[in-house]
């Protein structure tokens, strides 16, 4: 046993026990205000006027969040213009969720006279599902049943020396135990993609990694911009990182050393276990949502901070249903943000701990969070709006 989690009908193991109300918006928010133990996603753009490819992404986010092992049951409604698109048809989404054996209630299936009637049905359904979910008990689970996502933020030199390698140590452990881990941020593999491609399980996956980096460079060029003027961001440079290659070489350390099993789209669920590269956008209010929709039950953010310790109240979970553990290896960041940062690995730079010792502390922390311990930022009663990663223009 390594942690205590909630076993779901499809065999997956959750570390939280939410009732999720979908899609995001006024109706869901009102249901959540009425009923304890519920949550919803806040995405200002629900898919209206988006291409079929982007609407598919919205559908993947919604179904994926619902299937996340941290969700006990789902309330779904079809109120809102985006829900009239075939990809977002409420019965289609409900069927995809129900196939996992998870309880799902559609509260707009019958004709309704007013939206208030949908509120009433939603509140009643959510209350019943929350009460039923409270009967579930945590059970012993193995490290191989963990699913993790990671982002590195405002990278500096400490990220590459200790912060990301400590996450890499955790990732190697989870994958070697039979679990699943995600890393991504395509702009931050540019200059290091050849090293990732060498770790791919086969040449096709290696080529997909190379192609993802190339497409990002070409897309920036199409808009008349050089990717290197977007990334490294000014805060990276002010903290001492000079080039994109340097930033990327430090960033990929968070993926550990094991083989890369595949390349996934934003919010795409992997077919199997292992380490996956996700072709996604670096923004923290997008990336954690995508990981959670792909099934991550805990997300990590590895913060450099360097020249950028302005906001010491760091954001609570941006994965909606999955808690976020904040990590740093920068002593200045850790000192300034102790109220928000859960884990410090700058000891490796100071020489007071080996990477293995520091990494083992992170494994222990992940097990505790998986068993119910709250990361510090989870104590804040605030939910940041999420941005779904769209690939096409808005129309």
């Amino acid at each position, binding site marked *: 046993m390594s942690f205590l989690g909630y076993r779901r009908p499809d065999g997956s193991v959750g570390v939280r026990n939410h009732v999720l109300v979908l899609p995001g918006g006024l109706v869901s928010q009102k249901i959540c205000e009425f009923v304890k133990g519920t949550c919803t996603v806040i995405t200002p753009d629900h898919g209206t006027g988006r291409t079929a490819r982007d609407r598919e992404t919205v559908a993947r986010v919604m179904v994926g969040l619902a299937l996340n092992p941290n969700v006990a049951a789902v309330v779904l409604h079809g109120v809102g213009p985006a829900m009239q698109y075939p990809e977002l048809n409420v019965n289609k989404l409900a069927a995809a969720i129900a196939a996992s054996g998870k309880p799902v209630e559609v509260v707009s299936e019958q004709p309704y006279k007013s939206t208030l009637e949908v509120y009433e049905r939603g509140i009643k359904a959510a209350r019943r599902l929350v009460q039923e979910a409270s009967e579930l008990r945590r059970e012993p689970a193995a490290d191989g049943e963990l699913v993790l996502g990671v982002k590195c933020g405002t990278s*500096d*030199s*400490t990220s*590459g*020396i200790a912060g990301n390698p400590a996450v890499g140590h955790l990732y190697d452990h989870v994958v070697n135990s039979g679990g699943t881990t995600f890393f991504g941020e395509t702009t931050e593999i*540019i*200059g*290091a993609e050849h*090293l990732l491609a060498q770790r791919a399980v086969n040449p096709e996956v290696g080529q997909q990694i190379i192609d993802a980096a190339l497409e990002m460079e070409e897309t920036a060029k199409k808009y008349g911009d*050089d990717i*290197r003027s977007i990334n490294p961001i000014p805060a990276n*440079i002010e*903290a*001492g990182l*000079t*080039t*994109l*290659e*340097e930033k990327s*070489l*430090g960033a990929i350390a968070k993926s550990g050393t094991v083989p890369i099993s595949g390349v996934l789209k934003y919010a795409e669920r992997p077919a199997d276990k292992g380490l996956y590269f996700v072709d996604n956008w670096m923004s923290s209010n997008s990336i954690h949502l995508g990981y959670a929709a792909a099934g991550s039950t805990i997300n990590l953010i590895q913060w450099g901070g*360097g020249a950028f310790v302005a906001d010491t109240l760091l954001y609570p979970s941006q994965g909606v249903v999955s808690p976020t553990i904040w990590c740093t290896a*920068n002593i*200045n960041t850790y000192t300034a943000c102790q109220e928000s940062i859960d884990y410090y690995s700058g000891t490796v*730079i*100071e*020489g007071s701990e080996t990477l293995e010792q520091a990494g083992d502390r992170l494994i222990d922390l992940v097990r505790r969070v998986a068993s119910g311990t709250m990361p510090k930022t989870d104590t804040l009663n605030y939910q940041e709006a999420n941005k779904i990663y769209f690939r096409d223009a808005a129309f």
Partner: protein
Amino acid sequence: MADKRAIALDAQDNTAVAAQDIEPGDAVNVEAKDGSTSSVTATEQVPFGFKISLSDIGDGDKLLKYGQVIGYATQDIPAGAQVHVHNAQGLRVKD
């Protein structure tokens, strides 16, 4: 005064990361990941997290960190100097 510390991510590297604020004239002990050590005297200020050159690097020479090329020098960089955007650039920016 005790030596200052810098960390080389690979024994091949010609740059290392300052593990603390380094002042001009400081003797810097450079620890490589493989356990080997070397030393360099700082010629200028290198703040914590910034890079210091470990040897004389010529204009246009490759800069190594993690045992990989992270860019090239845009001017001559003497050993012990700070390496950053004023004297270095990414390789792919040339495209």
